[in-house]
């Protein structure tokens, strides 16, 4: 592939993935409102379009045309930059995530992924670890006590849970032997005992790692039951108290984009990525992996919403104790056990 | 192709900026950040030398530098918090007594 085709293909892929991601973000919001509504014996959005399906568009237009208030005492450069940072870091990590196998038309062949790097998982971890800045800086620059408390809580919480999150993934890395997300999915191909798929969740005690990863990821994305940084009963709206209109919407988008990244990573690392039955003509065989991948991501997003509709919020000291005294030792124990299993296995 | 000396000059400039910050800054947190900047400059020359001699040890040293920097930041920030609790200032010119 020469450099011109490479650039054109990359630009097209990036635009396509961005479009799909932003649409997915909008419809995850819709899904959440609808599902939580039904769980609480309400209808959720019904007025705009059939089943309220046009609600995200209406919300988007509303956010665009609302007055963008800037409170007088904020530290302006950071106040404006913070939501942008949040959204940029949330969206960028999608660049290394593979959605399916290879796509080929005639001689042309490209993966369903913007780019495949051999430190893919580290790139995702690095970019998501930078996501703290958006939240922390918005809390600090708003110059309001609720925002500041939210920002402080967010930075402490995200740094703490990042450790458990990273350690829970080491077991998978030991089994797969590569940082490349595509390589990790390929390491999960096939079955054992004839019928059980060779997913990492079923192997070497990685079920524990899966549990740790999901819990820590909920805390990383500031979702219930770990949404202390924006606990509306204590902190008004936490770190985005002083934000309105599009800037507020950016934090919202960042949160949901992060949820989608977490769901993608969980599917790739533990549930075999895009593996699934392939049948039909060759074009269908190329596109079916996308569907299987999408189903897993949808499942994870549904669990996110389900958890939100079910669990109450932690208290802050409980949150810290849970992260440091329970999840972290558990992650280390899981790591030791996985390493022993790999070493002792003939 | 970039001459290796360019990388070393860049690393030297970063180190000099760190030294300057260490000298002229009065806020103890910023002084700490200047130290981090110096360590970063050194890391760059480690990686550049690793590329020059085709020895991965240079890159391994960077890890040790990072671990030491992280440990130093943790202890240093704890000291800053303890200091702020007793003196209620971050200006090092006002921290000139060994006891209260």
């Amino acid at each position, binding site marked *: 592939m020469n450099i011109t085709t490479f650039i054109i293909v990359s630009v097209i892929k990036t635009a396509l993935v961005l479009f799909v991601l932003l649409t997915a973000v909008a419809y995850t919001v819709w899904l959440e409102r609808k599902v939580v509504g039904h769980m609480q014996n309400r209808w959720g959005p019904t007025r705009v379009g059939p089943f309220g399906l046009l609600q995200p568009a209406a919300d988007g237009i509303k956010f665009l045309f609302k007055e963008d208030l800037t409170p007088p005492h904020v530290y302006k450069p950071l106040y404006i930059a913070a939501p942008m940072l949040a959204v940029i870091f949330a969206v960028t990590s999608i660049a290394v995530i593979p959605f399916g196998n290879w796509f080929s038309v005639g001689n042309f062949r490209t993966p369903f992924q913007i780019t495949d790097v051999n430190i893919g998982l580290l790139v995702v971890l690095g970019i998501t670890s930078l996501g703290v800045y958006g939240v922390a800086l918005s809390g600090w620059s708003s110059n309001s006590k609720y925002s500041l408390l939210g920002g402080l809580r967010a930075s402490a919480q995200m740094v703490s849970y990042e450790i458990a999150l990273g350690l829970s993934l080491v077991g998978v890395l030991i089994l797969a032997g590569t940082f490349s997300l595509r390589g990790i999915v390929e390491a999960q191909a096939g079955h054992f005992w004839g019928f059980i798929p060779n997913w990492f969740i079923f192997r070497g005690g990685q079920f524990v790692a899966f549990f740790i990863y999901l819990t820590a990821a909920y805390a990383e994305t500031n979702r219930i039951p770990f949404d202390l940084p924006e606990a509306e009963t204590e902190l008004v709206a936490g770190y985005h108290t002083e934000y309105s209109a599009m800037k507020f919407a950016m934090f919202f988008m960042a949160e949901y984009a992060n949820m989608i990244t977490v769901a993608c990573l969980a599917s790739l690392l533990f549930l075999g990525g895009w593996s699934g039955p392939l049948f039909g003509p060759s074009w269908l065989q190329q596109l079916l992996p996308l569907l299987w991948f999408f189903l897993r991501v949808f499942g994870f997003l549904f669990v996110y919403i389900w958890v939100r509709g079910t669990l109450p919020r932690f208290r802050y000291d409980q949150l810290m104790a849970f992260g440091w005294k329970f999840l972290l030792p558990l992650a280390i124990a899981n790591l030791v056990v996985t390493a022993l299993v790999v070493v002792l296995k003939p | 192709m970039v001459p290796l000396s360019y990388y070393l*000059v860049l690393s030297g400039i970063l180190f000099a900026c760190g030294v300057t910050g260490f000298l002229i800054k009065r806020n103890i947190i*910023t002084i700490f950040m200047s130290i981090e900047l110096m360590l970063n400059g050194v890391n760059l020359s480690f990686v550049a030398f690793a590329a*020059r001699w085709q020895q991965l040890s240079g890159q391994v040293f960077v890890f040790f530098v990072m671990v030491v920097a992280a440990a130093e930041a943790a202890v240093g920030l704890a000291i800053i918090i303890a200091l702020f609790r007793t003196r209620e200032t971050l200006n090092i010119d006002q921290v000139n007594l060994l006891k209260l």
Partner: protein
Amino acid sequence: MLHLILFSVFGLVCVGGAVNLLLQRHPINSALSLVVVMGALAVEFLLLGAEFVAAIQVIVYAGAVMVLFVFVIMLLNAGEEERTSGSRVAWLLGIPAVLAGMVIVCWALLARSNAGVAAIGALPGHPADIAQLLFHQFLLPFEVTSVLVLIAIMGAVVLAARPESVERTKREG
């Protein structure tokens, strides 16, 4: 050529960030410019092929250490620094000395350099190779640093914990 362009662009970002760290009066601005320096340095590492080091640089430095700095600045509500007489001495004597030393080092490096050139990805630092080195040749230093980190954790906890006497007077008083 591409290498030189990328090197210069991110090198300029590095130097700009470092100078901005010096010029800014507010610690949070300094901290953010240091984050920029670290990000640009990660790109320079990538240009030399040290991909794993670059990733760790972003995760550990920009994502953890600097977040701690920002956290402490937020926690202590650090304001702009004041100018005092102590810094004037440093300005007058320190800056010229540093500049002179810098110029000499740069001149020595550029004029008498036979250090060779580096291409893009001059030494690919694959994680597996680095791990080989880290867990065989450098096993002892690795274990020693782990002890160091443990001591640092305990030190940080002891230092940052409130003294019990303070706690008790608060409770009673």
